[in-house]
Structure formats: C-alpha cells, structure tokens
C-alpha cells in the first residue's frame, strides 16, 4: 500500500531505500552495519517528524487524499469483527460511495457508515471517486434509523471530495437528501461518533457529519469547498489551490481552534498510509473511550447534547 508517495515525502522514501539496501548488504555479505542502520533510522524518524509538522495546508490536503491512505473499508476490516454490509436506500438504488453495515467493535455492536473511495481505476469508477449519489445519504439515514431502533451506537467515517455534481443526482434531489440527513440526525437517540478519516468535502461530508462527537485524523481535512473549487470561484484561476487551501483553514488543528471538532486523532509518524494497522489501532482505542462516555447518556441527553453542540457553531458580534 505504501507504493505511491507525494513530492514532499521523497527525502523519507530515499532514506528508507538506503536503510533497506544496507540491511540487504549486511545480510548477504555478513558485514555488520547495525550502528549505521540505527543512525539512519533515527535520522529518518527525525525527518518524518520535521517534515510532517510543518506541512502547508495544501500539502495536508494532498496527504488527506493520499492514494495509499486507508479507506473506510480498511478501517472496518482492521478495527471490527463480523462486519455485515447492508445495501440500498429502499427507494431507488444502492450508492457505492457510501457503504454501511453492522459490526462488532470491541464489546459493542455498532452500525458503521463510511464514505468509500477506490484504489485502482476500476474501483475508483465503481465508487464514483467517493462522490455519493442521493441514494447514499438515504441509505445512511435508513441505517441510522435501524441502529436507533435497536439502541446501537453509530460511527460514521467521512472521506469524500463532495456530493456528485451530476444531472441524475440533481434530478433525484441530492439537496433534499443532504438536508433531510442533517435534520434527522438531530433526532437520533443513540450515540453518533463522526470521524473524518481523509477528505471532508462540503455538504457530501456533512450529510453524515452531525454527531455527538466529531473527530478528525491528524492529516485529514474538512472544508466548505475544495481548494480547487474555491480557487476557481474567488481567484478565477484554478492554479491558486495553495492560496485557497491556506485561506480556507481546512486542517484538523484549524477546526479544533474554531470549535468545530472535539479532538484530533494522532497518526503514526509519517501519516496513516505509512502504517495503517497502527492507525486503526489508535482509532479503535479513541472510539472505545468515546463509546464508553456516550453510552452512559440517556437517549434524551444524547439528542440534547448533539443539538446544543451544533447550536453553538459560528462566530458573530452582537452590539
């Protein structure tokens, strides 16, 4: 999975190659390079740390979209047992960009709803590049009501460039489908934990984003519009993505400061794609902690807490 990398990751990759070479040489020739290898390992760690701590917001966006970054299904497979996928919105069809089902996460039966991208071109097409159709939001809502009926907590994993700008999606009322989810999620009486695992793209992301807790992985982004879209509209130049990403303040620490999210989930050194298993482990432990807290609340308190949380969003002056 770590086959592809971004420009700014190059120095690390070079170093890792060197370490691998040295290891191979020492193994084949019986020469002891262990001191050198240790030194290089340390250097690589330092490099990872320094590179990733001073990423620009645009670089973070690229990392959030990293082709090797774990997707919803990867986390489901690594974190849960006995996942059973459920399909269809019971109105029109089954969206492949939003998946969902029931699974066992540690001691809980949970409903998981995830936005799913594809890895190779065939799967990318199948997943519509992670851009949901209205049926996806409606399926998500159906599953949330199902979870509510049986008192099971809901976990949503956000990873989408945004809603699908297509004729069919408009014909079948994607605006209404998103709006309906925001409205209905205010009424769900079981815990909802939202985790942005990669790209949180606008209304398509928010449609499964109204939770008691909203968490973000360290290198994920969440924004009202993509840097590309923003650059095209405000700068009238689609190449101004770096400026747009910077202006939009879409990184996890920005959102924490703005009071939009509750917590940033640390990724292993080098980012989630460098060590998916470790990332899934961290995420599972974080989810456990929040589940422990939220399952203590009564259904009414859960609804109340969620409503108050979103009531507070925004800044303004009142004279």
């Amino acid at each position, binding site marked *: 999975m770590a086959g592809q990398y971004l420009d700014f990751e190059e120095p690390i990759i070079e170093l890792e190659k060197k370490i691998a070479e040295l290891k191979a040489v020492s193994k084949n020739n019986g020469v002891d390079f262990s001191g050198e290898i240790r030194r290089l390992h340390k250097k690589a760690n330092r490099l990872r740390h320094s590179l990733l701590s001073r990423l620009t917001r645009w670089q973070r966006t690229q990392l959030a979209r990293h082709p090797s970054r774990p997707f919803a299904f990867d986390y489901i497979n690594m974190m849960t047992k006995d996942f059973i996928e459920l399909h269809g919105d019971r109105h029109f069809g089954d969206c492949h960009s939003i998946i969902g089902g029931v699974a066992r996460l540690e001691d809980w039966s949970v409903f998981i709803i995830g936005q799913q991208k594809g890895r190779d071109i065939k799967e990318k097409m199948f997943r519509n590049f992670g851009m949901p159709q209205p049926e996806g939001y409606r399926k998500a809502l159906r599953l949330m009501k199902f979870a509510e009926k049986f008192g099971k907590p809901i976990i949503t994993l956000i990873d989408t460039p945004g*809603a*699908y*700008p*297509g*004729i069919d*999606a*408009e*014909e*079948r*009322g*994607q*605006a*209404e489908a*998103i*709006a*309906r989810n*925001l*409205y*209905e*999620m*205010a*009424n769900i009486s079981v815990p909802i934990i939202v985790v942005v695992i990669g790209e949180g793209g*606008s*209304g398509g992301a*928010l*449609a499964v*984003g*109204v939770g008691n807790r909203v968490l973000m992985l360290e290198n994920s982004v*969440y*924004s*009202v*519009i993509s840097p590309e*879209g*923003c650059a095209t*509209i*405000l*700068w009238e130049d689609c190449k101004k993505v770096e*400026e*747009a990403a910077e*202006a*939009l*303040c*879409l990184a996890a620490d*920005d*959102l924490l400061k*703005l009071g*939009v999210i509750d917590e940033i989930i640390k990724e292993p050194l080098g980012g989630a794609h460098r060590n998916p298993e470790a990332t899934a482990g961290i995420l599972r432990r974080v989810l456990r902690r929040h589940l422990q807290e939220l399952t203590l609340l009564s259904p009414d308190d859960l609804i109340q807490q*969620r*409503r108050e949380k*979103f*009531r507070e*969003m*925004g*800044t*303004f*002056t*009142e*004279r």
Partner: protein
Amino acid sequence: MAWFLRSKTPKEKLKVKKLNIPEGLWLKCDSCKEIIYKTELDKNYRVCPKCNHHHRMNASHRISLLIDNGSFVGMDSRITPQDPLRFRDTKRYKDRLRTYTKKTGISDAVICGEGMLNGHKVQICAMEFGFMGGSMGSVVGEKITRAIERAASEKTPLIVISCSGGARMQEGILSLMQMAKTSVALAQLSEAKVPYISVLADPATGGVTASFAMLGDVIIAEPNALVGFAGPRVIEQTIKQKLPDGFQRAEFLLEHGMIDMVVHRKELKNTIGKLLDLLERTKT
C-alpha cells in the same frame, strides 16, 4: 489648403444645457429584452409585464410584498459578521463586508423579523442576494436559527424566502456548520408543530438548499427559479455536456416531486395566507 479647418475660434463656447435625465428609469427585461418602465416593473412585483419573467427583488421589498402594511418589526439586526479566518483572496473579506454593507444598507445577507400576513402573525426571513450572493455565513445561520426558535416558542408560523448561492466560502467550515445548525433547529420547530413554509427564489443553490430551504412543510418556488445543489456550470464541467433546457428550474423540480408548487409572485401572499388559514383552523 485646409479649407475645412476652422480659422477662428468662436468667441464664446456654445452653452449646451445638459438635460437632467435620471438614470435607471427604463430597464431591459433580462429575459425578453423588452424595454420596461421601472415604476411599472416595481408596481408589477418586479415581474416583466410582457413575458412574466420574475426579476430579482431585494429582501425588504420581498418582506413588504408578504407582510401587511406597517406590521413588520425587524429582529436581530444588531448581529454583525466577524472574520474568523482572516480570509483573503483577491480582496480581504473584511473589505468585501464593508462594501456590501454600504451597498445594501444591511449588515449581512438576511433580514429577519415578525409581522402579520393576512392577519396571521408570522416569523419571516428574507435573504438578500445583493449581499455577497446571499451567501450563508455565521450571521445568516444565527439569524435564521433565532427566527426558527422564536417561531417554535411563540407558535407562530415561519416563512423563509431563500435567494442564495450557498454557503459563504470566506467563513470556511463555519459556514458549512450553519447548514447543520439551521436544520437541527428545524427539527425542534417540527416538534413544536409549527408550520414552516419555504419560498425559493432565483437562485437557491448550494448549502442553503441542502439545509433549511428544502425542509419546508410546504415548499413554494417562484416561476423559473434556479433551484439545485450543484450549480449548472459545475455540472457542465464535470459531465462535459450541455445541460438540457429547463434543468434545475422550478418547473423541473415540481415535475420531479421536489417542491409543492410554483407560484407567481402576485399570488404568493394569498397562497401562503390560505395555507395558514387551513393549517390553523380548528374545528368548531
């Protein structure tokens, strides 16, 4: 010899009395291109008398169209925007805000208040497209949320006239969150069993349609109003095809079951009035 040149300069310059013609007396219809007298257009609810095209209307004009004379009381007009991201594109957000406040005379893109509609007390919000494309940032979200809450606590019906390009990019993620904030508030309004009538004016797109605008108990659109989530240009770029005629227009949405009716501006007040009569009528 340049016989056509003036050999002498005139002793005094010709005095031409400049006619004082006020600008904007005559307008060209956006749709049929007919020349219309402005007063006539205003009297006709800014609907073209020749082709029935509904021109844009500012927020206060819209309120005066629906609310009984002299009964409107503005609310929450002291809420003003901040610049939480210190946003700057080709211009600074702060400067944009100043320009639009001057231009429209209001502090952000919505006017809220209460008044009487054919004898019914209502909460009303009208979005101002002239203020940054009617975009929704924190102030719009807060004012609409407060109107929803007033409607719920006082049990007065709510009317929101949406005319907006969507969420305001300059407030980033906080604008997106206003969609959740207003929709969550509407869930509470629904519990209070208070009617909510959503009116869609041209254009209603993006974050506004993906939240409160499409959540009305009754959704009414103005004729030919553009209503959708993704804008037509974005869709064209994505699918690389020309969009069919009438796509995302009010009549198209009616056909696809997304709205209840398309109503001429002239009929709007009476239609809402009748609805409220019927909904509030108790069996005697």
